[in-house]
C-alpha cells in the first residue's frame, strides 16, 4: 500500500474528529488523530473511560489493529465483558499475545485462525467499514459491555 495514499485516506476518514456535534452526542474525546494512529476516548455515566487506539498503517489494504487502553495509555490487561456472545475476546491473540476485539473490520479478527476465511476484502468497500464506522462498532460493543 502506497503510504501517501494510505495517509490521504486516513485524513479523509478522520474528519469526524473535528465534528464537535458528533463528539458531544457520543461523549467521545479525540486524543490524537495523526497517521497512522487514531486514539479516541469513550465516556459514559457510571463507567471508567476507555481509550481506543487504532493503528492504521497500510489502511485500507489492511484493517486497523485495535487495542484498548486506560487514560494513562496503559493497555488494559483484560477487556470489558460483554453479555452472552461478546466481541471482546480475553484469550491471547496469536500475534499480539493480547486480548483482542473479535469483530470484522479489526485486523486481529481477520488474521485469527478462526476467521481466516472471512477476508477483510469482504468488508472494506462497504459503508460502515470506514474508520469512523469501525470506531462506531467498537463504541457500540463497549456500550453493551460491563
Amino acid at each position, binding site marked *: 500500500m502506497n503510504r501517501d495514499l494510505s495517509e490521504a485516506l486516513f485524513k479523509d476518514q478522520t474528519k469526524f474528529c473535528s465534528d464537535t456535534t458528533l463528539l458531544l452526542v457520543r461523549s467521545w474525546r479525540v486524543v490524537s488523530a495523526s497517521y497512522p494512529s487514531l486514539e479516541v476516548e469513550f465516556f459514559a455515566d457510571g463507567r471508567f473511560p476507555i481509550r481506543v487506539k487504532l493503528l492504521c498503517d497500510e489502511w485500507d489494504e489492511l484493517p486497523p489493529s485495535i487495542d484498548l487502553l486506560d487514560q494513562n495509555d496503559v493497555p488494559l490487561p483484560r477487556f470489558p465483558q460483554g453479555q452472552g456472545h461478546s*466481541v471482546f475476546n480475553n484469550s491471547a491473540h496469536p500475534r499480539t499475545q493480547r486480548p483482542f476485539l473479535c469483530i470484522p473490520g479489526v485486523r486481529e479478527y481477520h488474521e485469527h485462525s478462526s476467521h481466516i476465511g472471512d477476508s477483510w476484502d469482504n468488508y472494506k468497500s462497504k459503508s460502515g467499514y470506514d474508520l469512523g464506522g469501525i470506531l462506531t462498532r467498537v463504541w457500540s460493543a463497549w456500550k453493551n459491555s460491563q
Partner: protein
Amino acid sequence: MGKEQFVEVAVVTTSGTYPTSGYNNIPAHQKVRIDLEKADNELKITSIDGWVAQVGGRQIDIDKSYLDNGLSGQFFIDWGPRQGGGGAINE
C-alpha cells in the same frame, strides 16, 4: 383538525451531520426512516445494513414516526453501524 406537531431533528454520523448546521423541521407523524434516507443521500452513505438509530442512548424504530417513538422537541439522531458479529461466549 388539531395543529400539526413538528420536531427539530439533526442526524449525526461519522460521515458528517445532516443538516450541516441547525436542525430540520419535520412533521412529528413522519416516519424516522424518511429523514435518515435524506441524510444517507446527502452524506453519501451507500449501505445501512445493520445500522441503528439512537436518541439519547435509546434505540428507536426507524419505521415508526417520531410520535410513535415518543420523541418531541429538538434532538439528535445518532445513526451508525452496530457492533457486528464475531466474538466469544462469556458465561
